[in-house]
């Protein structure tokens, strides 16, 4: 097979990366400063929180589920830790842990509804999307929360003196997501469930447990992303915090090749997807494109990405269809 794979196939198979490079080059020609290390760092830094949520979302999408509640989860988990930090004066690290706990519990509630009550993920997370923000609003009475100064210092910390904290967390999450998905039993079982939940049950996989863990993990990552974002933002949480971020996360995962129908996807793709979205946004702002046109350009780029992906699928289908005979041992084992 490899020998027959021509350039077109190679391009199609990596369509999102190719699109990424093309967009990167265009922005660079437009304005060479775009290639400055500072700007590149910015892009990665700003993509961090979307990327972290998108990793959790990738897990969920792999099981053919969906989690619309991540934006609300981000909000609620930082609201709780912010209120506690202000009222009890706890340090940044305990506050982070509280955010993670709230995010995880939020995910666990989703998991309970989906796994135990059997409410489909779309409706469950639609409900918790409204409830989560509702509880956050009730706790704050819609007021903003300002984290103490030390939160801001945490957000501005540079790891090893050069790498901003959000990027470090982002990298760790990517690594953790990659290891979980490819190197652990849990990860491989997620793929199995996404491929065929009924078969997974028959194969002795504890489907309920894996599904529950997936939503809990997604909640955990949402809590983490909320905390990272608020530290970047100078410690202020207002009522619109995290609103609508679920769509960014889903788009990042899908652009990275994750299927909404489950079983297909990986963390690296999600990484590229998250970066692509942020890069387009940054590039448009960088080059001072009319504010009204920015969303339209973004929409077109996302459309191109999913369009190329569909071409890839179509061509793969064509390639597969040629095997009318069983693939013999020698050829299948060869690659």
């Amino acid at each position, binding site marked *: 097979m490899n020998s027959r794979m021509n350039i077109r196939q190679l391009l199609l198979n990596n369509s999102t990366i190719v699109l990424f490079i093309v967009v990167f080059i265009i922005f660079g020609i437009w304005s060479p400063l775009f290639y400055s290390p500072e700007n590149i760092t910015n892009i990665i830094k700003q993509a961090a929180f979307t990327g972290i949520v998108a990793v959790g979302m990738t897990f969920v999408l792999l099981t053919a589920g969906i989690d619309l509640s991540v934006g609300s989860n981000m909000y609620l988990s930082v609201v709780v830790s912010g209120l506690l930090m202000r009222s009890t004066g706890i340090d940044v690290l305990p506050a982070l842990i509280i955010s993670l706990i709230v995010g995880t519990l939020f995910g666990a509630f989703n998991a309970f509804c989906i796994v135990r009550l059997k409410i489909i993920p779309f409706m469950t997370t639609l409900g*918790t999307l409204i409830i989560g923000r509702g509880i956050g609003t009730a706790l704050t009475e819609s007021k903003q929360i300002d984290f103490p100064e030390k939160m801001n210092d945490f957000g501005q910390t540079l790891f090893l003196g050069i790498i901003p904290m959000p990027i470090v967390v982002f990298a760790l999450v990517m690594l953790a997501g990659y290891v979980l998905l490819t190197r652990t039993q849990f990860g491989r079982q997620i793929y199995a469930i996404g491929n065929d939940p009924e078969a997974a049950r028959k194969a002795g996989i504890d489907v309920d447990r894996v599904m529950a863990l997936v939503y809990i993990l997604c909640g955990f990552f949402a809590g983490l992303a909320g905390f990272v974002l608020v530290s970047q933002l100078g410690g202020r949480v207002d009522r619109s915090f995290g609103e609508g971020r679920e769509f960014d996360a889903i788009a990042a995962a899908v652009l990275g090749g994750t299927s909404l129908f489950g079983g297909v996807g990986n963390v690296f793709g999600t990484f590229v997807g998250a970066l692509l979205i942020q890069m387009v946004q940054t590039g448009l702002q960088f080059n001072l494109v009319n504010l009204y046109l920015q969303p339209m350009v973004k929409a077109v780029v996302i459309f191109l990405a999913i369009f190329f992906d569909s071409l890839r699928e179509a061509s793969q289908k064509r390639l597969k269809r040629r095997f009318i005979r069983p693939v013999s041992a020698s050829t299948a084992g060869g690659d």
Partner: protein
Amino acid sequence: MAIVQDKLSPDSAFALTNKAKRSDRFSGGIGMLRRLLVSDYFVLYLTLLFFLVASIFYPTLSNPASITNQIQNFWPLLAVAIGQTFVLIIGGIDLSVIAVMGITSVAGALVMAENLDPAFFDKSPVWGSLMTEAGGVLAGNPLAVPAAVLTMLLIGTFIGWLNGVAITRFNLAPFMVTLVTSTFFAALALWLTQSRNISGIPEAYVTLGKGDIVSIYLGAKLTPDIARRDILPFITYPFMIAAGLAVVAQFLLSRTVFGRRMFSIGTNRKAAEVSGVPTQSVIIRVYMFCGFCAAMASVLYSGRLEIGQPSFPNNLLLDIIGAAVIGGTSLFGGKGSIRGTFFGVAFFVLLLNILNAMRLSPFIIDAVKGAFILVAALLDIIRTRVANQEQRV
């Protein structure tokens, strides 16, 4: 019932015994509850029950003015939810309806608006062409309103066509396609109007959005003038339009070849294709219809507000999909009805009103609303499970 009796058939024996069993199980209180759960009108009963319980505590809810007012709130939401129901039945989803409402509302205004303020609009890309100080393209023309409505419907249908083509021809996921068109057209609407609402909408259009056809007055006629607030709208243009749409949609769905084909696609697209169902064209037409319904809803919404409104809030989308799903439409396709969607719409509208009437603090109203949606979804799960048991046995 035509059961072919045959020694070889275990199935027929099954069918007979089950029928006997079924009638047993329906006796008693549990049986009543079960029958209620399985009923197609379950959501309606639930809504009414909730409404009755709430009205005991908050009598204002059941005053005639409030009731007729709530009913008026059904129609625009129903119009757009009908289209969404169609899309959900074929196993798709349309996230772009909100943007369609915005862009069509603007387009309609661009046709019929009377005088536009250059201070607001002179930066618009269409200033001087579609927009002038005199107003929209057909400003003042007696045919302006019908032309505007027609334009709106055409544009809505066209965006639906775009969605449908991208989904069928390129095999893209509906979720992503409509997310993209939603972003694009929402931005386009804002760009065209430079974020401004367009006022100066002709009276005839406003009538479509809120005009009464038949009104009622309850109570003694003490003074020669009846206060406006005591005249209750009964049959209104929005009611006629939305109800008309609902009747057409229900008719399409249950009586025509097109409707059967929709269900077959939603149940099993491959099998439908093999059976000669022109799946691509059916899917495209369904998305077109959804765009059409959104444009119709846009007429109702922007008519009653008397403006061309470029942006509609995104959380309306949750109400639209929520209403359809609570009304029994499956997100996996193949299941759904207009009647159910109507009940779902009633549920959403009344729920929100009841929560407000309960004097809940605005800070916790959202949390409670979300909880109610989850409860309704849970009840639907239980209901489906009970119904499946009836089927299986």
